[in-house]
């Protein structure tokens, strides 16, 4: 109890509250600029948190992430440019509403559904993570190997249109993750003679290169017409500019169901918010009495994906906080910021030093509350924000990316790495390889390698290697739970894909 109170106190200083507010405002504004994605905005900010006090830097990053998620939905609704892949489902009904002049109404419904979904999953995180962390204290290298392998396999298979490309990208990321000195023998591996590479590739240049530089390069190659500023108009009818209580109440069952779905999907490491958003959208359409309204501007069509994809962002922190394993790129970004500040999430921190964890939980809830209040302000100015010229924005992003990478270690080599990864990310995107599994593979490889090598050493030293794994109750239980969860989610994903394919073929 003392730890909980100490954690809350850490997050309730005026510096922390100010940082959450500042992060939210910056995140909402940056997220609402078409072309700037939520992950890009956060990846660009991470190096700067190094210069801040942990309890200013971390709350600011949390605020920024939540704000940019909401901001990215604004661009999805108003200019049909989702700021995150997860907001793509919001376009389906959000953009038709904007075309009818009801952009403000759609944005407000997005705000309410997002904050609801986010708060729902944060509460599950607060209660679930400590429970899981207590269980995880009994985990050995075999269980960790299984957990990480499960995350990687799931992510590799469900990312991208073709499974082999997702797997290949993930394995490439894992290969990049082993560059540096071997943890057991200290032999250099794939360092190509560069001394800088012996420490391994830095996470920050990698994240900035793939998430910011590659994305900007990809967007800058579009024809100039597509880079021109967008124009949006809102209806003057007050009924089109607000969400009435009756409208919100009618969407509440959908929001609740989508939040639960998003939380369940997010708690599974490896399955992204995009999957959750589309699952929730399809479920809302399937269970609706008037499914024909979907795709033409149904408010439930905006509420469902938004509640689900925001629920994923909180639930994604469950595997991160409980096991130290990031389930998605958002959690990976939070992990890198925590590591910069010397905080390593996982079961041990819950046992030995839980204050930072409770401070993070408090900051998450605070950010939701402030997001709700500040979101209304953003909606009012959204029309102007989405008109920021991309021809000015994109070059500036490249310079911020270069300076941010340099600031971490003071090395020009990091600037070069950022642009090399930008080039690699651009090339992979052109060949339709998903880059998120690559980043997750890169982050998880050191954990997987050390645990796998230790497990194999132990298994090799006993007469029956398989007996070693299957004699461990934690391993067997974890295996059964994971297989069950995977079957349940994959069955649903496949059912939705088949339905989408059938609809496509039918119409075509």
């Amino acid at each position, binding site marked *: 109890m003392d730890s909980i109170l100490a954690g809350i106190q850490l997050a309730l200083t005026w510096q922390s509250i100010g940082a959450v507010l500042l992060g939210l405002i910056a995140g909402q504004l940056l997220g609402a600029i078409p072309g700037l994605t939520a992950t890009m905005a956060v990846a660009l900010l991470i190096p700067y948190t190094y210069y801040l006090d942990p309890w200013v830097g971390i709350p600011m990053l949390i605020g920024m992430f939540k704000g940019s998620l909401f901001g990215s939905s604004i661009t999805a609704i108003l200019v049909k440019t989702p700021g995150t892949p997860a907001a793509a489902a919001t376009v389906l009904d959000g953009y038709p509403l904007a075309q009818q002049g009801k952009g403000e109404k759609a944005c407000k419904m997005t705000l309410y559904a997002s904050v609801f979904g986010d708060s729902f999953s944060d509460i599950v995180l607060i209660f679930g993570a400590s429970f899981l962390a207590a269980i995880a204290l009994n985990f050995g290298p075999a269980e960790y190997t299984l957990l990480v392998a499960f995350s990687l396999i799931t992510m590799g298979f469900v990312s991208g*249109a*073709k499974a*082999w*490309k997702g*797997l*290949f990208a993930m*394995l490439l990321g*894992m*290969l990049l993750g*082993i560059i540096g000195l*071997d943890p*057991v*023998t200290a*032999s*250099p*591996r*794939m360092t*190509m003679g560069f001394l800088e590479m012996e420490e391994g590739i830095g996470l920050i240049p990698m994240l900035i290169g793939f998430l910011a*530089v590659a994305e900007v*390069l*990809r967007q*800058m*190659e*579009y*024809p*100039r017409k597509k*880079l*021109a500023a967008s124009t949006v108009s809102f209806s003057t009818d007050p009924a089109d500019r607000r969400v009435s209580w009756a409208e919100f109440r009618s969407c509440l069952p959908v929001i609740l169901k989508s939040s639960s779905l998003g939380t369940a999907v997010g708690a599974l490491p490896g399955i992204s918010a995009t999957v959750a958003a589309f699952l929730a959208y399809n479920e809302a359409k399937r269970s609706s009495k008037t499914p024909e309204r979907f795709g033409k501007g149904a408010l439930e069509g905006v509420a469902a994906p938004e509640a689900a994809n925001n629920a994923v962002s909180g639930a994604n922190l469950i595997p991160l906080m409980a096991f130290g394993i990031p389930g998605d790129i958002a959690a990976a970004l939070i992990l890198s910021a925590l590591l910069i500040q010397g905080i390593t999430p996982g079961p041990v921190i819950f046992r030995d030093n839980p204050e930072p964890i409770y401070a993070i939980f408090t900051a998450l809830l605070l950010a939701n509350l402030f997001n709700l209040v500040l979101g209304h302000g953003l909606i009012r100015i959204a029309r102007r924000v989405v008109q920021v010229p*991309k*021809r*000015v924005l*994109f*070059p*500036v992003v*490249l*310079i*911020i990316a*270069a*300076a941010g990478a*340099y*600031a971490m270690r*003071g090395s*020009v080599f990091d*600037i*070069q790495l950022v*642009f090399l990864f*930008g*080039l690699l990310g*651009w090339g992979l*995107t*052109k*060949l*339709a390889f998903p880059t998120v599994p690559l980043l997750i593979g890169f982050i998880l*490889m050191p954990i997987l*390698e050390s645990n796998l*090598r230790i497990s*194999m*050493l132990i298994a*090799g030293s006993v007469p029956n290697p398989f007996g070693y794994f299957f004699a461990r109750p934690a391993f067997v239980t974890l295996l059964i739970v994971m297989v069950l969860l995977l079957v349940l989610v994959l069955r649903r994903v496949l059912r939705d894909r088949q339905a989408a*394919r059938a609809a496509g073929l039918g119409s075509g």
Partner: protein
Amino acid sequence: MHAIPTHIRLELILIAILLPLVSLFTFWYVPLSIDAPQGFGAESEISPRFAPYLLAALMAAAMIGRLAQIAFMKSRGTLHEQIDDLSEIGGTEETRRGIVLNTATMLYCFLLVPVAGFYAASVALVTWLVYRLGERRIWMAALVGVACALFSYLLFQELLSVRLPRGWLLQTFGG
């Protein structure tokens, strides 16, 4: 006999390039570049070569699996049902623009920043990019470049006390 769709043909070309590259990595690069010290044989699970070999084998397996899947689908005549994941990545003109932009960023980080320093290099890159992306007033493009460099200077040098790279020219002739 069903014709192979273009995107599947491109996928086959990609695998035909990647598979030899993975083999080259496994049989040439790993043994050449990663030492296995005495007592840590290449076959041992604690050898530094264990992880690269495992990953390369899995990469090859993923590609061979895909080849088998394509062969199976071709024999059943269902290749046309495959999703065309290459249709949304842009045409030749966009790729050409992308190559030019990537060349410019490579010049920026490998040549301009080490030689001319961060600020001069950034002014040059931003000015060129803003102009290229449609700003026809060259002075306006240059103004954006200078403003960007000034912002970086104020943020890093003044606020965070981080000295961004000065460059070889300034270090040699600027004192």
